[in-house]
């Protein structure tokens, strides 16, 4: 039996040869112009989270499912379902604590402690395992950006799985 650590290494090795979308030059830059304790913050994850009442992600789409799910800020974190399963990672940690990939409880603590201004009313999850990301680049990621901008979000915190 191959241990999860070996699988992790194998996946990293495989990914070195994978045709990842590459950019040159300077990335987009929106510097922060106010104190963090006055900022509105939103979380984004690619853990494939969804509410039980939302449709699960479709793992039969070739190239990956580039859709997203809106996660209300008021959600009890324990009820979120993890839609992303892969041989490349061990889901047992996330099953015992969703904050491992979607740290909403930690950000609530930062909000209560006055370290950040406020959490946005909604957060977003995408699916992982996207090998053909064109719809993500052209449509769904900009859509989420525009919605967060319209919400008055100052800072977005993103996590992979």
């Amino acid at each position, binding site marked *: 039996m191959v241990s999860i*650590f070996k699988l*992790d290494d194998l*996946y*990293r090795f495989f*990914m070195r040869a*994978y045709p*990842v*979308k*590459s*950019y*040159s030059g*300077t*990335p*987009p*830059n*929106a*510097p*922060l112009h106010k104190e*963090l304790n006055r900022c509105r913050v939103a979380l*984004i994850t*690619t853990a494939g989270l969804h509410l039980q009442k939302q449709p699960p992600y479709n793992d039969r789409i070739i190239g*990956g499912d580039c859709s997203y799910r809106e996660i209300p800020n008021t959600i009890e974190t324990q009820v979120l379902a993890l839609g*992303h399963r892969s041989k*490349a*990672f*061990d889901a047992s*940690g*996330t099953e*015992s*604590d969703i*904050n*491992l*990939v979607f*740290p909403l*409880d*930690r*950000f609530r603590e*930062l909000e209560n402690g006055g370290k950040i201004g406020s959490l946005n009313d909604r957060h977003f999850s*995408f699916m*992982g*395992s*996207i*090998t053909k*990301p064109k719809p993500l*680049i052209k449509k769904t*990621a*900009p859509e*989420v*950006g525009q919605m*967060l*901008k319209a919400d008055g*979000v*100052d*800072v*977005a*915190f*993103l*996590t*992979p*799985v």
Partner: protein
Amino acid sequence: MCNQSVGLIQRAVEETGISTISITLDENITQRVKPPRVLSVPYRFGYPLGEPNNPELQHAIIAEALSLLEDKTPLPILKKSSV
């Protein structure tokens, strides 16, 4: 591929004028996608915030990532976590 997707989403969100920070578990991919500000953590896939049920460690990682918002180094910033 999660680390590629995060970088691509991060670039798109930053394009709208929102300041973004992210965590990566695979620097090699992130160096190619070049999102603006990234904290690289030494954990295995599935564990971007380090350990389950360890709020102290999770807070330390989040604080280090948030500190990149004040980093004046030219973008892209890809910093190794010192937590």
